[in-house]
């Protein structure tokens, strides 16, 4: 299963390296979203600083939706999904591989967005351990749930609009917990950030387990 996951992740990342869709389209889109948040808050610096963790995770959510759609649009063209089904790779391995590829792209995006938040919203970074750990856990949640729902909506009519409708409510607790963990790490809230990290870890485990168990059936129905 792990070998299959590596093969699929390497394939997806190679496609991204050659096409550069995430780098040339998704990353600029996420940065534009950050800029627009600045307009929405009327460039009020204290307000932007306070809201920066939430705005960061909203930008990640929007960009994550695009990354997941891209991950499955490469499979729907030219019958690539049929080839993947017939390849003999384990469905759980395909799920983990696709989730890992989306996660790698999201981590790169989050690094750039963090820079954007520091420059645009004047956020001072602190609590590096909690920041990185909660970012990794949230990314695992977005990638796992995204790939599971991406497979689910792959063969559907109007999948472009259905995927955000299905995925956004599922990821709402992740955005909530990720924002709270970052607020604690940045000293914007007095709560226990590690408790929120626990919530994120629990959601990541549930989404990953659900994807590993159900991805085979979803691929058959797609």
């Amino acid at each position: 299963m792990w070998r299959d996951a590596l093969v699929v992740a390497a394939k997806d990342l190679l496609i991204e390296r050659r096409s550069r869709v995430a780098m040339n389209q998704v990353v600029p889109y996420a940065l534009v979203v950050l800029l627009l948040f600045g307009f929405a808050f009327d460039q009020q610096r204290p307000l932007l600083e306070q809201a920066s963790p939430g705005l960061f995770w909203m930008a990640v959510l929007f960009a994550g939706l695009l990354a997941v759609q891209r991950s499955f649009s490469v499979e729907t063209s030219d019958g690539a999904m049929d080839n993947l089904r017939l390849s003999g790779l384990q469905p759980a391995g395909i799920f983990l591989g696709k989730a890992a590829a989306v996660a790698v792209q999201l981590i790169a995006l989050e690094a750039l967005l963090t820079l954007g938040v520091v420059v645009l919203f004047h956020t001072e970074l602190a609590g590096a351990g909690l920041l990185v750990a909660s970012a990794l856990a949230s990314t695992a949640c977005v990638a796992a749930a995204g790939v599971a729902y991406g497979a689910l909506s792959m063969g559907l009519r109007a999948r472009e609009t259905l995927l955000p409708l299905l995925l956004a409510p599922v990821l709402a607790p992740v955005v909530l917990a990720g924002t709270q963990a970052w607020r604690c790490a940045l000293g914007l809230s007095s709560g226990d950030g590690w408790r929120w990290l626990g919530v994120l870890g629990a959601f990541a485990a549930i989404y990953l387990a659900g994807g590993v168990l159900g991805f085979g059936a979803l691929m058959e129905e797609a």
Partner: protein
Amino acid sequence: MKKPVAPSSTRLSRVLGWSALVALAVTTWWGLWVSPPDKVQGQFVRILYVHPAVATMCYAGFGICALASIAWLWPRLRSRRWDRLAVAGAEVGAVFCLATLVTGSIWGRATWGVWWTWDARLTLTAVLFAMSLGYLALRRSVENPHSRAMVSSMVAILMLLTVVVDHYATAWWVTLHQNTTLFKPGPTVHGWQLATMLESFVAFGLVFAWMMVHRYRLEMLEERFENEGLSAALAARRAELSGMVRVGEQ
């Protein structure tokens, strides 16, 4: 007037419907006239006779949807009736979820002074409603009945997870929403207030059951229409064609 060929009502649903109407009338009478105002909340306490019962029916709808979905996924139990039950539960649950949000918002305005606040229980209920809309949209997007049942079952199970988190939200997070008052040892509601609240659970339970029976039968009739509709259309075209041939022969 011609009677419908396949109505969604049955003798059971008619009994349920009339019982629900009577129970709702009793709840209204007790809730508005018999039950006294509360010492703290005054007249606003009367929404207590709607909101908790409606919220419980919302959970029941999504719970039935998830359990029926698990039964459908279980190979030995797999049957179309579980899928029908799942969609009935989700749709009726969504109606009660919307009613929960509306009545909760009215109560919030009366007690907290705002129509909406970013509280864990409220936010999770809104998320649950959005998930149920997604579930119903997903069902409308898949034509093949087997695929529809398969993908929607998986979404339903995830919806159950949100129901559980939503239910325990008041215990796990610091929220404005009050904690359990009724279903605990030594409830803090007494007398006519307790009686009316329990009566509201019976009334909305009957409404829920009535809606479930109708929605289940409607799904059954839709399946029948899908199966028989094509045969009926083909028979009608054949009849038209044979009529044309006969005219041509003459």
